[in-house]
């Protein structure tokens, strides 16, 4: 009869092999999917895109890098951000950093 340790070694060996295969597969998929990724980069350069279209429900989630600091709350003063993505999406760091000297500085009064 198979000893429990042999059985465990076989199972662990199989799991370890699957783990190694997943790492090799990552390298294979990386090579296979790279041309499509290069195409995406070309499209970004050609159209001048700035954002991923992961969240298309509101303008500040569709283009978070282009949104201004208060766009999530611009519907009226003290408005709550009402899209669920808002809870998942951090405000861009260059808008919240106190040293961001370039963001939204205007000489004329708003």
């Amino acid at each position, binding site marked *: 009869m198979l000893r429990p*340790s042999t059985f465990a070694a076989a199972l662990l060996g199989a799991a370890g092999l699957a783990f190694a295969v997943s790492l090799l597969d990552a390298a294979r998929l990386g090579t296979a999917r790279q041309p499509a990724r290069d195409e*995406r980069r070309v499209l970004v350069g050609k159209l001048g895109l700035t954002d*991923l279209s992961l*969240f*298309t*429900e509101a303008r500040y989630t569709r283009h978070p*890098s282009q949104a201004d600091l208060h766009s999530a709350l611009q519907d009226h003063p003290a408005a709550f951000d009402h899209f669920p993505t808002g809870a998942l999406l951090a405000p861009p760091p260059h808008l919240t950093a106190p040293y961001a000297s*370039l963001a939204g500085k205007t000489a*004329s009064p708003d």
Partner: protein
Amino acid sequence: MHPWLEKQRHLIDFTLAALARRKAKNIGLLAAYALLVFVLASLALFTQALRKEAGFVLAASPEVIVQRMVAGRHDLIPPGYLEKIGRLRGVQKKEGRLWGYYYDPVVSANYTFMARPAEEVASGSIMLGATLARARGLQPGNLISFRSYAGKLFSFKVAALLSPDSELLAADLVLLSEDDFRAFFDYPAGHYTDIALSVANPQEVRNIAAKLANALPDSRPILREEVLRTYQSIFDWREGIVLTVLAGAILAFALLAWDKASGLSAEEKREIGILKAIGWETGDVIRMKLWEGVLVSLSAFLLGFVAAYIHVFYFGAAIFKPVLQGWAVLYPSFTLVPAVDGLQIATLAFFTIFPYSAAVLVPIWRAATTDPDAVMR
């Protein structure tokens, strides 16, 4: 076989037999453990791949985008603005861009309209993102009508669809000619949405942005590095949010593992006492338990990681999709390029294998060093 190896095999045989005596409990523990590793590994693989993807593709985005702000809101670029920017030294190319949003009540989705030169998209025709085309059931050659914000109906012929490989960037994109864009949105002549600048020397980008802010005080320059940083932080934030949501589950598992591993049952204590009474050394008892910890945690890690890999890179992280999708009607279908790095795996392995193995050892060491007679009582 080497005597040391034979001894370890016997210890493992004994450990597995002991685990098999409490089969349901231990299989349940292994399943919960593997599930936890699966969720954590899925999250790590998914966010890392998205972070790398955003970093790679957005590295080709414009060096500087100039927006104009009026009363704290993004406003149109008026005529004459482009000429003023043209005088800045270091700016290689400047291009007024036209883009905006359109809400389509038919599918309750927001689209991004973007104007392209006439040689790319002819007047009266449009190019569509694959996700949008799927949502509206459109093929090249079909006609589609949109009611403009002025109430007029505009019909366009679908000239082509953007590659399905670009859905992550262009899910909701509608490309149309500049004339059509201006007519559809009733855009004032000579005005633009924003300006994209090309800067020859990357070292100069910050200086140019500073000069822009001085020359055009109502402008807001957005640098490419800020765009890239935004995406790095978005996925850090997301990982953090999901980890926070998972914190309860992680703590519950930690408690379960700690309770299972540290709170030795009377039965286990008696078992250790008997083993010592029949001649086992303290070192043997500890080695036996060490094997138990390593076998359980290593199996859980390997199973959880492989399942997470398949989930993220072959099933498009289907479990996270509802969270990512939010209220968006158009959600791109995309495949990620795996970005598995050694540090990521080592961190995951350390935080999943090590604590459990340690939690198993400490109480056993205490029990195994006490007098067998006292333990059995």
